[in-house]
């Protein structure tokens, strides 16, 4: 059988308050379900990371957002690997006790999961992450010392031969903020997510290797009313384990089509379907993929702070109410079954004039 591998891209934009996937890895059940009915699932850290929780999906590609945009635009391809040597960057701004927690998590990933890590690097200056919320309600952020981050990554890549980079940056503790309280209770926008994406984007753009970020924060006071969607971030001292697991098998980026092709390489034109929240269609990856013969499935139930439905941008998408419905569409699409044939009303063919 010479069948095209059915490839699905699952996008839940970061830091936009997605009602599914806007909290602590709470789109992971969606990813697990889609992974069951496709050959290849491409998703990003915001979908697959659950702090200390994660799930090994053998057919999933863990692709950071900057790399995902480049992949969707056709500039970069993805090359699966069996394992990566993961280098760890710790922000100099992390206090000694908190740093030790991160290092113990890294050692645990080595001893308990068998992951391959290089020695770590501490940045030569505090990264000084600053958080902000935009007019739209999305979380964004900047870092004051991006060059320090990039120097640390360069050391790991050149000296320790790291093939992927995990970054732990000290994020501001703002335990009394309304945004944090809402987030812990499964409402509003993750106040950290936008700045996290900036950190990983910087490394991927500069070095073209996989990268993901986990924040370092002091433990929060115990709260009996934590939302299940946010609870994965309440059960330990570090969010690093999921990042290390994801990066340990993240595909490499092929940045030139002149690179000797391998059969397992994946390029944008091999994507069959994209699943995205229905009012968050304004990302670079979706705009790129909308130019290809890709089935775009817009999930209405996954509400976000964005106000960008596909129709307003001229993107042809199939609207569905829920991820359950999206799964049905994917199954039919993969099987070559028109979804019109699955509904009771099927009109007769008309003659094109």
């Amino acid at each position, binding site marked *: 059988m010479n069948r095209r591998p059915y490839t699905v891209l699952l996008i839940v*934009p970061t830091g936009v308050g997605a009602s599914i996937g806007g909290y602590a890895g709470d789109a992971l059940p969606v990813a697990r379900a889609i992974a069951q009915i496709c050959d290849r699932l491409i998703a990003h850290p915001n979908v697959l990371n659950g702090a200390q929780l994660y799930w090994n999906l053998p057919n999933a590609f863990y692709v950071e*957002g900057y790399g995902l945009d480049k992949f969707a635009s056709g500039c970069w391809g993805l090359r699966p690997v069996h394992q990566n040597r993961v280098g760890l960057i710790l922000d100099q701004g992390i206090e000694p006790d908190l740093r030790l927690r991160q290092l113990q998590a890294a050692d645990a990933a080595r001893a308990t999961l068998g992951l391959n890590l290089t020695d770590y690097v501490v940045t030569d200056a505090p990264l000084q992450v600053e958080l902000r919320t935009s007019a*739209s309600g999305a979380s964004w952020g900047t870092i004051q010392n*991006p060059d320090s981050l990039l120097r640390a990554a360069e050391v790991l890549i050149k000296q320790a031969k790291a093939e992927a980079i995990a970054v732990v940056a000290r994020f501001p503790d703002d335990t009394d903020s309304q945004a944090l309280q809402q987030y812990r209770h499964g409402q509003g926008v993750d106040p950290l997510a936008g700045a996290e994406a*900036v950190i990983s984007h910087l490394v991927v*753009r500069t070095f073209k290797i996989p990268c993901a970020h986990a924040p370092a924060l002091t433990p929060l006071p115990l709260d009996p009313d934590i939302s299940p969607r946010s609870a994965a971030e309440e059960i330990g001292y570090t969010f690093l384990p999921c990042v290390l697991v994801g990066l340990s098998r993240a595909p490499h980026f092929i940045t030139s089509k002149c690179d000797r092709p391998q059969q397992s390489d994946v390029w944008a034109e091999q994507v069959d379907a994209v699943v995205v929240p229905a009012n968050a269609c304004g990302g670079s990856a979706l*705009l790129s993929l*909308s130019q290809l013969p890709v089935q775009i499935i817009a999930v209405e139930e996954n509400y976000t702070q964005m106000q960008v439905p596909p129709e307003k941008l001229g993107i042809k998408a199939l609207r569905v109410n829920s991820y359950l419905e999206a799964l049905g569409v994917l199954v039919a699409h993969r099987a070559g079954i028109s979804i019109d044939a699955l509904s009771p009303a099927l009109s007769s063919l008309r003659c094109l004039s």
Partner: protein
Amino acid sequence: MTTHFIAAEIDLQESPVQLQQAIDAELQKRGEPLRWSIASVDAETQKAQVEAIVTVADDSTALA
């Protein structure tokens, strides 16, 4: 290198890919685009509100 948050208003284009190019061109005026998304679309004015982070290089940004 410094990182900056910016907001921009971009005219809607005939196709998504043209819009993408227009966004990139506008952001390039302010720095090197790192991450952006369209946050809303005003059908009346035919404009997209874009939020972005750009980086601006300075003399001390060279890597070792």
